[in-house]
């Protein structure tokens, strides 16, 4: 087990290096720091002095890969690649283009993101799985047909419309909850009810269809027929046999996105002005803050790769048929 885990972690290292190199190429090779400076400073005709000032201020006035002016190891460390990319490995995100410490911003802003994403995920799972089980229970009847039509219709509506309609109906016309905002502690609850509800509803279409297909696959298996032959009633079969066996793909699907919950949802957070990492990223995109976007790309990849490792572990823990090799 330990050896297996070690191997999984070792496999993550080349992946992270590849992601790092990719972001470096994307942010520094496609466009030189001069281009970025010109973009940030805005005007068509920017003086060379202004560009070099901006570059010096933000630490972009170093050579890309090798610094010939320095001696020894510093030839490699006093470069953009080392300063801006390699430092990401120890989560040293540096200073954003607007002068704030990205690391402390992230550690502050990931909690609101989590406060929105975690309830959405759990409630969504509960709703989707119970609805899917219900549809499977009524399979090959008129109810199933109607439910399938409703699901396709729900799936065809853009999530933006769910948000806009929800905000309009619940918050504006009925005035049950505030339209947007965030507060610390329990007083933040009234701000979170609506976004959580909307993200659950907007996920029903695709989610229920996915779980339904998982359950349908299990329902046709031999062991289910055996259970039915033994005289078990349909409810017991669904909960004791089908749900248990289908829970392996469900679990692995959930575990892989668990770490990514910290990143939050870009659209939800910006619509409801929740100060999480999602709205942080959107603000950075709109301000064209390259340092923040770069950090978020790397952080997102780290979390995803961590999720992959977690998935492998949970697989081996839950499913006795999976052997460690």
């Amino acid at each position, binding site marked *: 087990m330990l050896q297996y885990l070690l191997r999984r972690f070792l496999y993550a290292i*080349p*992946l992270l290096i*590849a*992601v790092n190199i*990719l*972001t470096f190429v*994307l*942010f520094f090779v*496609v*466009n030189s720091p001069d*281009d*970025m400076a*010109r*973009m940030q400073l805005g005007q*068509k005709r920017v003086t060379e002095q202004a560009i070099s000032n901006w570059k010096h201020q933000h630490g972009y006035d170093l050579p890309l890969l090798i610094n010939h002016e320095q001696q020894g190891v510093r030839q490699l460390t006093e470069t953009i690649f080392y300063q801006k990319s390699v430092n990401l490995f120890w989560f040293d995100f540096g200073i954003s283009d607007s002068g704030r410490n990205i690391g402390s911003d992230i550690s502050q802003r990931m909690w609101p993101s989590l406060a929105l994403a975690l309830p959405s995920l759990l409630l969504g799972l509960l709703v989707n799985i119970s609805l899917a089980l219900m549809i499977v229970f009524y399979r090959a009847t008129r109810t199933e047909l109607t439910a399938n039509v409703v699901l*396709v*219709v729900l*799936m*065809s*509506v*853009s*999530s*933006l*419309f769910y948000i*806009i309609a929800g*905000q*309009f109906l619940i918050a*504006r016309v009925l005035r049950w909850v505030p339209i947007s905002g965030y507060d610390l502690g329990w007083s933040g609850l009234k701000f979170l009810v609506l976004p959580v509800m909307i993200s659950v509803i907007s996920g029903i279409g695709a989610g229920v269809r996915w779980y339904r297909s998982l359950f349908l696959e299990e329902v046709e298996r031999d062991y289910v027929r055996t259970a039915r032959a033994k005289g078990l009633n349909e409810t017991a079969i669904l909960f004791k046999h089908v749900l248990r066996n289908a829970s392996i793909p469900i679990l692995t699907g959930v575990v892989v996105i668990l770490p*990514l919950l910290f*990143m939050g949802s*870009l*659209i939800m957070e*910006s619509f409801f002005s929740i100060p999480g990492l999602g709205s942080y*990223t*959107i603000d950075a*995109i*709109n301000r*064209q803050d*390259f340092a923040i*976007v*770069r950090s*978020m*790309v790397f952080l*997102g*990849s780290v979390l*995803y*790769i961590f999720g*992959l490792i977690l998935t492998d572990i949970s697989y081996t823990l839950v499913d006795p048929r999976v052997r460690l090799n």
Partner: protein
Amino acid sequence: MVWLWTDVLVVLLLLAALLMVFYMRSQAHLKRPLAKLVASPIAMGSFALLMSFALIGLMDSLHFKAADSQRNELVSLLDLACTNMRTHTETSYSAPFAAYAFNKQMLTGSDGSTYWGFARLQHAATHLQVPEQQLLEDVLWQSVQALLQSFAVVGVLIGLAKYSNPRRFWFPDSIRTVWLVFTLIGSGLYWMWVLSHDYHVLGTDKVGEDVLYQALKSIRTGLVIGCLTTLVMLPFALMLGILAGFFKGWIDDLIQFVYTTLNSIPSVLLIAASILMVQVYMANHGEDFNNLLVRADMRLLFLCLILGVTSWTGLCRLLRAETLKLREMEYVMAAQALGVRPGMILFRHILPNVMHIVLISVVLDFSSLVLAEAALSYINIGVDPTTHSWGNMINSARLEMAREPVVWWPLMASFVFMFTLVLAANLFADQVRDAFDPRRSA
């Protein structure tokens, strides 16, 4: 004629689709699923709907220089057909079928006095003396005329079909659905087109542009993103997936490594980063993108490329798994034993047998790409702000929901158009999957 980059690709895509259809018709093993598809009313109905959208998108893809303008302006066939909507711009908001502006403004009366009121629109209901009394009657009368005309045309067409082939006139359900869909779409569009001469059928937006025109123009953007992205990612996914599954060993490891790396970057962030870089590039190479339309078109193309790069991994993984299964099949082993070269085995024995996966996933991805465009445009990393797209329409109309009374028509228009396209695509995708997936047709 002027060909933009995406126009060329759209035409190429059309040719590819036609070739694909002919290829599929000639293959014996595809006869059964195709027949199943043709027999299904839902499949044919949604396909007809998709084709009507595609026709509008295609009309919007044929660009030429405007004859009447001195400026370097490009118009499409659709623009020509909708000249009324394109040129009839007001100053600001107006509701559907309104004769007066939506906002009050300072007006000068006939006696020279100024007062605060609603101004008459410049291009809507101008032929009416007293719009309060005549408007409803006029709209109804014009609608009846338009609908009667279009139904007469459909009647003649059905009559022709009956005359030319009387015994087979009682169509199967699916063909009747196609007739129904085409009749509804055709007469609906004709009705809107006729009324757009005298009214703003779906109102006007903040800068006074006709909302119906915007919604129609957005069709092309949605289709281009849904289709071209597929065209971009298909070669990667197909080649790499099959190679990884067939050769195993270090090739498999390498390809898996590449797609795990790409997959591990959250796609929204990768798209955001790439679009930021494209913006920087365009800002610094302004001279290459002097025409507004060309610039917007390049950005649309880049968006398709980037979406393609982020979305090929899923299909690649599916194809790899299927190829791993296929290469152990007896007929592949037989081919190997007979000394057929690996390239030939891939082309002859593996490729045709994974095509159903490709088809299903392409059709399934289409609707999610159309939806993704709207979300991305909302975050400002989608298409160019000057491009007509449903995402941009939603984005600019969103804040108006806070007004009193509510400006609902731009949102409603984009919702209806987008919903219709996505729903048709989803229904069609489900039917395609049912017909082509061997596991489902047992």
